[in-house]
């Protein structure tokens, strides 16, 4: 019967059903998205696992079914581009997902997003870098997300030392679990989003209460008992919830389409990957409608439906403070000890403490708010008529206003804390980048064949537009010779730098130098002392690279003529990391174990696209070279994106709460329409009642925002201290939140005025 009332209960019944459905739909959609995060991450990692194989434990021998495979990642205007070079050894090489056949020599397959970028005028410089002919597009199975920039190219010049020989794609590895601060971020985001949604559901099921109560009383008059009326009311709520469930499903399906255009923390996924796991989805389907019914039953707790009307049997509650402090204090007690445990240990127990403490502190404000509103409003006296009407109204019953505002409080407190955490973490990166990024320098590492090749690379880089200075050497690890009972794999590796006198002179002071000279950096680093670097000492040019590894020693005796050379302070402020410096005639690069060429390029910031030109040159030298630079701070973009998304989420949440406030305000006005008509008959100005509505909305919202500010700043500061970041308050965001809160007040008041004025009409005085 309740469901029939919900469907055919007239305009009010439909509005209530629609609002309940809207609230439940939003809740279901948010929960389904939240429940999709683990599967989404699994799918994202899974796609990477399926297509990748950067080396096998037992590399296969070259054969018909093997391929030489090498990373060739690059960055273009701050966007990371995943590149992979291949060179099949035979006619039947393995093929990664999303690709039917490997591209031919000099050809490449690209992701749709990269295809678009290359075809655009902005991609001109990138076309120079990726000089392969585009032979096709990689299918969705070969991409992590639709916005991913990636390519697979066949390179004839790919050498064994640059890549890995593999006989299959797909690798078994476990992604690192989410770090505790990230877990806390997800939990707090869910809490900050879900609380307002629950508040909205609570508000919407109360819409049209007066008429529903009259109807229930009428049912009692014809013989229905109290449990029956409760069942009917629950049935009404259930109908809206079921509609909301369907709507939520539809909303979720629509919202997940947006996944393809959203990139957070460099994660962009396909809409099909945004799928909740079965168990959480089943729980959501069961629990959300039950929650709406529960709210309806709770709303009926304080009333008895009698045949002649409703008896409100709940005496006015005196709100006590002590038990309301339990939640926030418990939260602080869980978090505070973590601030003393520095540095942060990412253990499961600490993660639980952090998540539970943050959630308790956030929920604590919802318990504190009713007391705060009562305590403050109860002390207010006097003032003009609108103020007096609003204050008295709140003194008599602040429940519905406080309920709606508690959503604002949690959302704003959560948003402020999350913003602070993000800003603090971002500030840490910014400081690091500001320190290193002051120096316009870019570095490249790649395998080195010999010194002439490195010299050629240096010449090419020096000829690149915008380049002001280049230094480069061939570097490799050296160690002490293995001896009985000594595990040299545990030694701190020592480094040899091979280069021309001019290049070595950029690293150490060499007053005189000729090809064939050898220098020992002074003062000696600990690693150099350990292996006994000295003129005439014999060292190993093929030391182990991993713990426990045994390598065939490659002894080399340092010439007795080797001279000490004072190390220079490097222009990029990096610590000096060279122990032995040799010229090519003294030691050939071919004798070193896995030698790398290290190229450091200084450039002029004022030259347009200097960095991109340098990257283009580096790609021509060796596309498999790794780049190291502080030019593009990816964290700014990542955190900026997340912070913007959070701000947008907070705005939407506040608008949702605003909608809830409008419902409760209009509902209250509707219940008081006779009184409003009487006041109109007395000649009460519309402005008087308009201001009264404004104050009635403003007071709880301001108190809620103040509480949110206190809670958000406390929680944010605690989280920052715990994560070892400096406490930074993002005041523009705090001001923005307060501004949005003020806008919500005005928005609610403005939308409440038309119904207010409509209800002030004399029709309310008619009794017949």
């Amino acid at each position, binding site marked *: 019967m309740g469901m029939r009332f919900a469907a055919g209960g007239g305009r009010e019944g439909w509005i209530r059903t629609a609002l309940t459905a809207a609230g439940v739909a939003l809740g279901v959609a948010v929960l389904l998205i939240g429940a999709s995060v683990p599967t989404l991450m699994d799918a994202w990692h899974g796609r990477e696992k399926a297509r990748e194989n950067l080396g096998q434990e037992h590399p296969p021998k070259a054969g018909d079914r093997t391929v030489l495979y090498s990373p060739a990642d690059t960055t273009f205007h701050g966007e990371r581009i995943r590149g992979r070079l291949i060179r099949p050894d035979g006619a039947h090489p393995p093929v990664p997902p999303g690709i039917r056949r490997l591209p031919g020599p000099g050809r490449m397959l690209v992701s749709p997003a990269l295809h678009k970028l290359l075809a655009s005028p902005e991609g001109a410089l990138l076309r120079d870098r990726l000089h392969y002919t585009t032979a096709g597009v990689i299918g969705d199975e070969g991409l992590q997300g639709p916005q991913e920039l990636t390519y697979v190219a066949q390179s004839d010049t790919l050498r064994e030392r640059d890549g890995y020989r593999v006989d299959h794609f797909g690798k078994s590895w476990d992604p690192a679990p989410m770090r505790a601060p990230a877990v806390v971020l997800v939990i707090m985001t869910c809490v900050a989003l879900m609380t307002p949604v629950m508040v909205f559901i609570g508000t919407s099921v109360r819409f049209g209460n007066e008429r529903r109560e009259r109807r229930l009383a009428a049912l009692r008059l014809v013989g229905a008992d109290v449990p029956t009326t409760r069942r009917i009311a629950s049935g009404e709520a259930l109908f809206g919830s079921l509609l909301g469930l369907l709507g939520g499903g539809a909303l979720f399906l629509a919202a997940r389409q947006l996944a393809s255009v959203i990139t957070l923390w460099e994660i962009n996924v396909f809409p099909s990957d945004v799928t909740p796991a079965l168990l959480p989805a089943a729980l959501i389907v069961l629990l959300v409608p039950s929650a709406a019914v529960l709210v309806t039953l709770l709303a009926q707790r304080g009333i008895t439906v009698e045949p002649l009307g409703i008896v409100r049997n709940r005496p006015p509650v005196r709100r006590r403070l002590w038990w309301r402090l339990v939640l926030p204090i418990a939260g602080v007690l869980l978090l505070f000890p973590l601030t003393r445990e520095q540095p942060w240990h990412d253990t499961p127990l600490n993660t639980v403490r952090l998540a539970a403490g943050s959630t308790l502190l956030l929920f604590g404000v919802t318990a504190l708010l009713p007391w705060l509103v009562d305590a403050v409003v109860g002390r207010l006296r*006097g003032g003009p*008529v609108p103020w007096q009407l609003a204050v*008295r109204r709140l003194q008599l019953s602040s429940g519905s206003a406080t309920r709606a505002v508690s959503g604002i409080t949690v959302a704003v407190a959560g948003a402020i804390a999350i913003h602070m955490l993000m800003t603090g973490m971002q500030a840490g990166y910014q400081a690091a980048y500001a320190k290193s990024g002051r120096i316009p320098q870019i570095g490249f590492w790649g395998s080195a064949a010999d010194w002439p090749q490195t010299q050629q690379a240096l010449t090419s880089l020096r000829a690149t537009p915008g380049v002001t200075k280049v230094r480069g050497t061939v570097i490799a690890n050296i160690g002490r010779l293995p001896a009985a009972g000594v595990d040299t794999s545990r030694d701190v590796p020592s480094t040899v730098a091979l280069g021309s006198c001019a290049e070595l002179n950029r690293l150490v002071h060499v007053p005189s130098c000729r090809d064939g000279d050898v220098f020992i950096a002074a003062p000696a680093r600990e690693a150099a002392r350990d292996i006994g670097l000295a003129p005439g000492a014999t060292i190993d040019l093929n030391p182990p690279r991993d713990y426990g590894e045994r390598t065939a020693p490659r002894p080399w005796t340092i010439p007795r003529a080797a001279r000490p050379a004072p190390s220079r302070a490097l222009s990029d402020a990096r610590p000096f990391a060279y122990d032995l410096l040799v010229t090519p005639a003294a030691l050939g690069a071919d004798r070193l174990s896995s030698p790398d060429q290290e190229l450091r390029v200084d450039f002029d910031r004022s030259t347009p696209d200097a960095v991109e030109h340098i990257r283009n040159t580096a790609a021509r030298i060796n596309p498999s070279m790794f780049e190291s630079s502080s030019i593009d701070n990816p964290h700014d973009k990542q955190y900026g994106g997340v912070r913007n998304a959070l701000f947008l989420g907070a705005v939407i949440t506040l608008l949702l709460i605003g909608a809830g406030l409008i419902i409760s305000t209009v509902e209250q006005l509707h219940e008081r329409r006779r*009184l409003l008509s009487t006041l109109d*008959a*007395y*000649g*009460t100005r519309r402005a008087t009642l308009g201001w009264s509505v404004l104050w009635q909305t403003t007071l709880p919202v301001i108190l809620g925002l103040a509480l949110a500010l206190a809670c958000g700043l406390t929680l944010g500061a605690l989280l920052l201290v715990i994560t070892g970041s400096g406490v930074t308050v993002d005041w523009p965001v705090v001001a923005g939140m307060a501004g949005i809160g003020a806008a919500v007040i005005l928005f609610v008041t403005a939308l409440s005025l038309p119904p207010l004025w409509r209800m002030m009409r*004399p029709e309310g005085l008619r009794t017949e």
Partner: protein
Amino acid sequence: MTPEGSLLAAEGLSKAYGPTPALDGADFSVHPGEVVAVMGPSGSGKSTLLHCLAGIVAPDRGTVRYGPHTLTGLTDAQRSALRRTDFGFVFQFGQLVPELTCLENVALPLRLNGTRRKDAERQARDWLEQLEVEGAAGQRPGEISGGQGQRVAVARALATRPRVIFADEPTGALDSLNGERVLTLLTNAARDTNAAVVLVTHEARVAAYSDREIVVRDGRVKDMAGRI
């Protein structure tokens, strides 16, 4: 034409709610200090007449004159101002602001007129005393009886010393004893202040408190004393 000496007069008032006519060419007048009972069966148009006379509702046709003013020619804001300063109202129920104390309720019309809070509350306390409900001053409407509530409502209607008091079924929700007491207090206070009272009722015993009775039937007015 306005009857000579009348404070408030209406001529040819017509008002319809949708297809249903509530007033159909009704005439009415009341003199200062006069208590006029407007009687008639349910749905006859009594309340609509009161609402038109008070400027709460604009008639479809006809005019309402109050002193030098033609109410039907005033703007909504001007009519509201007139109601604040010159008219008082007592309704059957639902008229007191539940969150304000009785004292604040009585002071409300004064404060709406710009009287300072303390002055307004002092005057309100006097009126509560006159209406014999001074003990309810600090209580909220929900905490007092119906009879006390109506006395508070009468005190509120009188607080601005209006020239016309409109009372729509003021005792409709009260038992006879309380009803009579409220009417006695209302009419006595009105006579003391020379205020005219338009008393809408369907009870003959209530009409007994009036100086004159008129009957509204099918939207038309019949003056039992033969006057309009």
